[in-house]
């Protein structure tokens, strides 16, 4: 695991997070889990790229968690959009797929982190902590 932490997090700051996942149960569980963490506020939930873009514009979140597959479409399209139009918003890709190539693609698209869904319970909090302060979270990658 290689993480990069350029600055120490300020516990007084509240991170506003937008969750974009097309699977309602996963989305619900993820939101529930995020809410258990102090210093994190979920500002919205979306199940599609379009809704994601709308809510980003509306809430201006600090961080967006994006599922790689959104109703058969490539979640990286949203990542690319945010990277281009909202360069200050950090994105983390969450996925069921464990392929090296997807992590690579996510990094190319401009995502700050890449978390396997079956590692979310362990990696979510540390990844958010790393990414919110400008670091990147790509386990297993140099």
């Amino acid at each position: 695991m290689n993480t990069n932490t350029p600055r120490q997090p300020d516990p007084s700051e509240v991170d506003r997070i937008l969750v974009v996942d097309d699977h309602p149960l996963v989305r619900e569980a993820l939101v529930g889990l995020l809410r258990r963490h102090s210093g994190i506020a979920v500002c919205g939930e979306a199940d599609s790229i379009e809704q994601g873009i709308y809510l980003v514009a509306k809430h201006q979140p600090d961080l967006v968690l994006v599922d790689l597959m959104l109703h058969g479409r490539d979640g990286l399209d949203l990542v690319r959009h945010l990277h281009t139009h909202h360069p200050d918003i950090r994105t983390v890709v969450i996925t069921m797929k464990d392929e090296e190539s997807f992590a690579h693609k996510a990094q190319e698209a401009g995502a700050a982190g890449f978390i396997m869904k079956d590692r979310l319970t362990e990696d979510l909090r540390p990844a958010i902590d790393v990414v919110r302060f400008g670091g990147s979270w790509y386990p297993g990658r140099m």
Partner: protein
Amino acid sequence: MRLIERTRRSIQFRLLILLVAMSAVILALATTLFGWYGWTLQRRQFEQQLVAMANLVALNSAAPLAFDDLDTAREDMHLVQSGSSILYAAIRRPDGSVFAEAGAMAEGSPPLHHDPGQSMVDYLAGSRMRAAIPIVLNDRVIGQVHIEEDLSGMNRQVITVVGSAIAVFLATLFVAVLLAARIGRTITGPITRLAAMVRMIADRGRVDTGDFIASPDEVGDLARGINTMLDSLERSRRELEQSLSQQRTLFDTIPMPVYAKDLAGTYIAMNHRYALDVLGDKPEVFIGRNREQAGNGHDAGMLDHLAAREADLGSSGMSTSFEVTGHDANGELRVYRAQLGLFRDQAGTSAGLIGVLLDITEIRRIGKELVDVSMREQQRLARDLHDNLGQLLTATAMRIKALEYAAPEGDEAMKAELRDVTALVNRSAREARALSHGLNPVDIERGGLLRALEELAASTEVYARLTCRFTSTGPLPEIDKDASNQLYRIAQEAVNNAVRHASATRIDLHLGRTTNEIVLSIRDNGRGIPQRRDGTAAGMGLRIMHQRALMIQGTLHCNPRPSGGTEVVCRHPIDTGT
């Protein structure tokens, strides 16, 4: 005219002629001999009578001559000549001059013997016999007696005798002709009856006249024997016909094209399926014809292919089975499994070949469909496992993690328990993903066939603890999903065989290409291909590999390597878009 000629030619006629000719010759000879003997006997008798008369006359004439008593001498001569057949009688002096005579001497007769002391008898013209006898007195020849006799009496007798002989000859000849005819009939009768019998057999198929059957002689035996033989022949013929009929029915009942050819390549039999489905007409159109004469049927290429393999069979004598494709009457491409075998005559010599074509088009299609369905199902199951179960497990894990955070501060036991449950659920999610991966190894999104083969090599190294390497030479064209899946499964099976059956310690997988083929090879250094026994895993595995290659229009060869081990090579044609 024909009848006469036939009669002349008949054995009976020739026998008759022969017997009559023989009888005629024998009788003519006998008659001639009899006539000659009769004539000779008659003449000698006449000679003796004449000489006796002449001696008597000579005895009586000695005195008149010695005493020159002319009157007595003349009287004696007249007395002699007055006999019925004496034409001339004379007493001559030793110098030949006539002393006394009576009657007329034959004119132009040769003179008498110059020595009057010699007796003589000779014949003169005009049916006369002449005798001259010396007249002796006291041992001295004083003259001779000269008598000429008319032989016409004797000739008449001879003619009577010869005539009787000829009459007897003719009568005997007549009897001989009758006898010859009878003998001819006796000898040729059975032959004639046999001829009639043969004509009857030719006309009616058997001897059905009581005359022949009831006949107690050899002809009857023959007729009965012939009938028995004909009955046996008829039974054999019926059995043969029944057998042929059964064969024809069998041929036509077989629900697949079947044909038979002689060694020269001429059709000698075929069923309707072959005639209609392959050649395009009724069987009788093609029987007796060869490949060229029978035309091109629905697919010339297929007939050429079959003809080539038939020629191979003729030279090798080995039955052969192979696949051949050809168009049917509707122009649809059919796949046949052809089986060719030789049949032999009674002496065991090859007499021709039989070809059977099993249409496996549907089996092929259903097989492909089955594999497709099975593959689709596997992929669906893989997707469900990955997308649904995986997601649900992930969601569950996060819920439990949330519970862990929500647990009362200080209740470390609860928190530890919840952590364990979370880990368990996460592990379940990973297992589901691995299962999904196993069901659908060649995921295009995950790098396709190349990646799948790399993973196969890597996982084999780990699980089987041997060296397994994958290499590829590119650039490789895009391989479609079906072909990728089948090639992967072939590689997987070959690797499995190498590990489980050949005890290999090194396996090399390679994916490359030629101008128009993708070539997958799997080489190992194991024990080689195990002896194939039906039902063994290796045999079944090989068959499945072949089947998979066929599904993607490819070929598969499994050969021992010269250095030991086995090489499996699968070639899959590249769709060049032509």
